[in-house]
């Protein structure tokens, strides 16, 4: 009888010691969880911060993630890479295309303005452009100024962007600037050749940027040769400007 009773006693001890081990495990677990809970009672209130508005004019191509509206690289092609080289009025071409871009951040709308002198009697039109890595008929090539130069091709889409002159006049078939904006350009200085009085042209409709992040829009500046037939080394100045709204 006594022998019979011994076995359950051993079992009791075993159960209690097992229980102890279990308790220790629970104690450890409970302590760590509770400690985390005690120091963890916090609140966070958050808000998205507006980035400072930025609007830049560059030459071709900038690395851009158009899903997330983010530039994926710091590098951009500086506007000084916009060369008006290769214009030959004696060649067959009636126009030459050059690519530039407007990029920035947190700008919903902007307008583009061209201001140019009229020595050559060229005319200019702007087109929205699409970018491709593949050459196509009529596309303008642009080679990046990176360590590993890449070539991108830009094609105009749709009609020329609508716009209007602020100060144009036609004199004997030539498009020249009138005197209305003379003082804005030259102040009181009056000894200015008629071809050096700049024409101001502005887009009629707003161009669209992107309020909630980065954006980049490519443009083709088309230079029309018109009737000019001689490479007489006349020079012109053309300014491209953009203003955010």
């Amino acid at each position, binding site marked *: 009888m006594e022998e019979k009773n011994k076995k359950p006693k051993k079992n009791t001890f075993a159960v209690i010691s097992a229980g102890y081990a279990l*308790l220790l495990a629970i104690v450890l677990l409970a302590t760590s969880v509770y400690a985390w809970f005690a120091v963890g009672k916090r609140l966070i209130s958050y808000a998205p911060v507006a980035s400072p508005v930025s609007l830049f004019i560059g030459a071709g191509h900038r690395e851009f993630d158009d899903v997330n509206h983010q530039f994926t690289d710091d590098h951009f092609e500086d506007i000084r890479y916009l060369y008006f080289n290769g214009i030959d009025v004696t060649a067959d071409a009636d126009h030459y295309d050059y690519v530039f871009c407007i990029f920035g951040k947190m700008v919903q709308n902007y307008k583009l303005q061209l201001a140019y002198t009229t020595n050559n009697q060229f005319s200019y039109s702007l087109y929205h452009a699409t970018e491709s890595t593949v050459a196509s008929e009529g596309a303008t090539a642009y080679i990046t100024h990176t360590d590993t130069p890449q070539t991108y091709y830009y094609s105009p889409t749709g009609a020329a962007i609508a716009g209007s002159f602020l100060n144009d006049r036609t004199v004997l078939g030539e498009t020249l600037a009138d005197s209305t904006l003379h003082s804005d350009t030259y102040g009181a200085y009056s000894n200015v050749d008629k071809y050096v009085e700049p024409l101001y042209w502005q887009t009629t409709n707003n161009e669209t940027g992107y309020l909630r992040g980065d954006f980049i829009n490519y443009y083709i500046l088309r230079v029309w040769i018109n009737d000019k037939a001689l490479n007489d080394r006349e020079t012109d100045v053309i300014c491209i400007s953009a203003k955010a709204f």
Partner: protein
Amino acid sequence: MSTEGKSMNSFNAKQDKKSVTGRAVILALLFLALIFAVLYVVTLNSSLGWFAQNRRVGGRNMQVGVESDTYDLLVERGTEYDTVLLGGDDKYPGIDTFKAAVAALGYSFTATSTETSSEISFELVNEVATRSDGVDYYYLNPGACGTLTIYLKPKSGVSDVVAHLDISIGGYVNEYENDVLVLNEMTSATALDLLKGHILFFTERTGASQEYYKYNGLITDGLLTYDTSQHAKSTKPGKTDCYEITLYWEWPVLYQNIYDMTGAAAFDDRYPPELTDYVDDNREYFFASIRNTNDLDVLNDEYNDGDQAIGENADFITVTITPIQ
């Protein structure tokens, strides 16, 4: 023994084993209860470091802590500005990444009370919208203002508590790392300092609209002390057991505004007089680089550069509220 043994013998051995095992289980449970009781006291003591609001001063006897955690904080979720737009676009680019980073720290975006979740995140209420294409965007930018409302609920059996809340401002920024955009916690010490001066928190605000707001109770050291005995409970339905704590924040557009509108003698008393001292004592919170001057033109420029530095170094800001002793 032998008679007992014999009477027990009429039971089978299994029954005998069972009753012993049963006793062991009861013993174990008792142990468990005891250990938990000890554990409870131990952890309560350790958590006192954080939530010691049951220690009262002012003639009353110190309460011996059985409940250490004397209050809960709650948040009422209002309008969510950052819901996804039609077409699946994030309303605020990168907000998902930001929220994931905050969630990884343990903050819940759905809980409304620290009773149920230890760390809660919620949107700062911004009263100034930027409207674009028919959609309101609530970006934080110079000129923005709004509120931050939390509710303090004393635990049952606790009448009054003095809560000390640490209010610290930080943020996250998207940065290029090897041509990959990565969301990092703000580390620019300059920008973090500038946040403390450009986004001001007050405990009081009067006036019908932004133009007429007058602020009082500038929070200067990131610490808000809230003594419930000095306030009445909320009368809002369902919150009558809570104290409503509203902070008012503003990002002044120009330093000239602070200069012209601080103190009773000023052109306007939009801001309380203590703001002048706050500016003088913490010039690095307000001005980007040149600080040792009283030339107002320079200070205006430096404040403006400060706005720029914040914008460049923060894509999201966070206001962290931590109960401290």
